[in-house]
């Protein structure tokens, strides 16, 4: 009897695993088929007004890069503080937990926050607001990464630096950060991959723009928002463009993730 129950449970578990995997591969396969079907050279050379994705791809990259430029210094230095300077352990633990909680805060709420403090005072949506929203999403991820990676640096390195009389900030910048460089960069790469696929915080902060623009004071083209808008349109051509965009986005995110995985593995070797 026990053996039978054992068999049944193992079978059910395997079945559940297969079912889950089936759904997930179903998504990937439809995405690939639809995406590749809709891909052509015009997608990359035209803007959205002419049924292309050029301005959207560039816009999304700019938004994410700006978010990195805003978010990384803040998050990284905060992470350094948590790992290197926090002798008051309670405060550091508190900030750490807070940052983890913030990491899972609903992204749409961050959108509403930025809407309230940036969009409403200026009276219109702008690229800056979108980049800020993404940066706010990114900061806790960066804090966590930096914190974890610095934690892996052996204590002896620190002591060696201090023993030869280097001031602490020098030890941090010249020794510890160098030792943790690969891990931190990988973490940033993954954080970048995570925010580049975000839609919700951009919906009413950067809005969307059918034309090519680099002016961050205006509504800014964004791939994810455009995918959302296009795929609910009745025009089949536009839906196809949305699929192409979705495919490119997923491909990009997955490639970055695989790359990050590979780097980590190489480093461990």
């Amino acid at each position, binding site marked *: 009897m026990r053996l039978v129950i054992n068999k049944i449970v193992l079978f059910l578990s395997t079945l559940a695993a297969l079912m889950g995997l089936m759904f997930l591969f179903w998504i990937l396969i439809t995405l690939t088929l639809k995406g590749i079907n809709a891909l052509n050279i015009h997608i990359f050379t035209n803007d959205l007004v002419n049924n292309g994705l050029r301005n959207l791809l560039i816009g999304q990259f700019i938004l994410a890069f700006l978010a990195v430029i805003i978010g990384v210094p803040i998050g990284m230095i905060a992470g350094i503080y948590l790992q290197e300077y926090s002798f008051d352990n309670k405060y550091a633990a508190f900030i750490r937990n*807070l940052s983890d909680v913030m990491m899972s805060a609903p992204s749409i709420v961050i959108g509403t926050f930025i809407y309230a403090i940036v969009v409403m005072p200026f009276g219109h949506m702008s690229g800056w607001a979108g980049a800020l929203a993404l940066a706010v999403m990114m900061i806790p991820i960066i804090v966590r990464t930096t914190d974890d990676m610095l934690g892996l640096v052996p204590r002896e390195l620190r002591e060696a630096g201090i023993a030869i009389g280097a001031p602490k900030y020098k030890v941090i910048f010249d020794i510890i950060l160098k030792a943790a460089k690969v891990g931190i960069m990988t973490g940033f790469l993954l954080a970048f991959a995570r925010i580049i696929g975000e839609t919700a915080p951009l919906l009413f902060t950067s809005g969307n723009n059918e034309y090519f623009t680099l002016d961050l004071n205006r509504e800014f083209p964004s791939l994810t928002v455009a995918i959302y808008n296009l795929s609910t349109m009745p025009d089949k051509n536009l839906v196809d463009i949305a699929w192409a965009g979705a495919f490119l986005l997923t491909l990009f*995110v997955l490639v970055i993730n695989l790359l990050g995985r590979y780097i980590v593995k190489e480093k461990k070797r």
Partner: protein
Amino acid sequence: MENIFKRLSALNATTILFLLTGIFVVLFLYAKPAIKEYGIKFLIDPRWGVSINPNKPSNNQDKAVVNQDNENIVVEEEDIGGNVPVDQEEIIQTDEEDIAINDEDALSQKSKVIYGGLIPIVGTVLSTVIAMAFAVPIAMGIAVFLSEIAPFYISKPVGVAIELLAAIPSIIYGMWGLFYFGPVVSRIFGGGSVGLLVAGLVLGIMIIPFMASLSRDSMNTTPSVLKESAYAMGATKFEVIKDVIFPYAKSGIIGSMILALGRALGETMAVAFVIGGVFKLPEKITDPSVSIPVVLANNFAESSGMSLSALFYLALILFVISFLVISFAKFYFLRDKK
């Protein structure tokens, strides 16, 4: 120099505290008109954008108007009967200019509009419950399969695949749900191809990889000595899983479920495609409805005045709920990680 850097880094760490409290305070301030107007009853009021004719001349409207810029009366003044679907509100926005002219007249005689949050709150809770009911067994199956059943050469690539799937942007799940999954569900369970059930299932599929990989990690921490001694006593695999691994990894597993729950509560894009976006209390599980993030996503940019304030109220509710859920998971179940 040393001191400067130290101060700077402390300041940066405090930024996180500032940001979180900032979000709370800002949401609260903007939600204040709605909180004042509706109070706690907002939570159980199923009317969204329903206009009522006040018998007594109410001064509530003034309160609503004070806080906001000049366009704010548009949505409130418009005479909307019954439920307001999303599109209707959008349409209203397009004639903004025309209506704005009549503002003064309108203000004096038209009825006021009530905003209540019950429908989106119910929609959020129901879709999350469906998602959890669907995702937990499958995610547990995957976790057990990966950590105990599958040989290494299978569990390794499958594990990587699962983790990669957790990285796919949620908008992709939503799109797939709308075009492929929704029709299938409606064929099996009846109802339309958008609705609570589809939304819950898509949401469930989305959180499966997340939950499965976290649970697997925590099952993998079970010391093999414990497992081996159980096997040596003649226990079957199921008994080892039930009596050794689950108790050992319990807090991690429950923590992963609650984190996934928090994620499902606040998820916007995967749900926005498939929930239908209709302000209606669902009678059947397949009915279209609306959830808090979806209401925000669809209506935020076009709202102003009291409706905007009500939206901020909803955002505040969502923020507080997910904050509580996640901190609960963090502090109670995942504490020993640090």
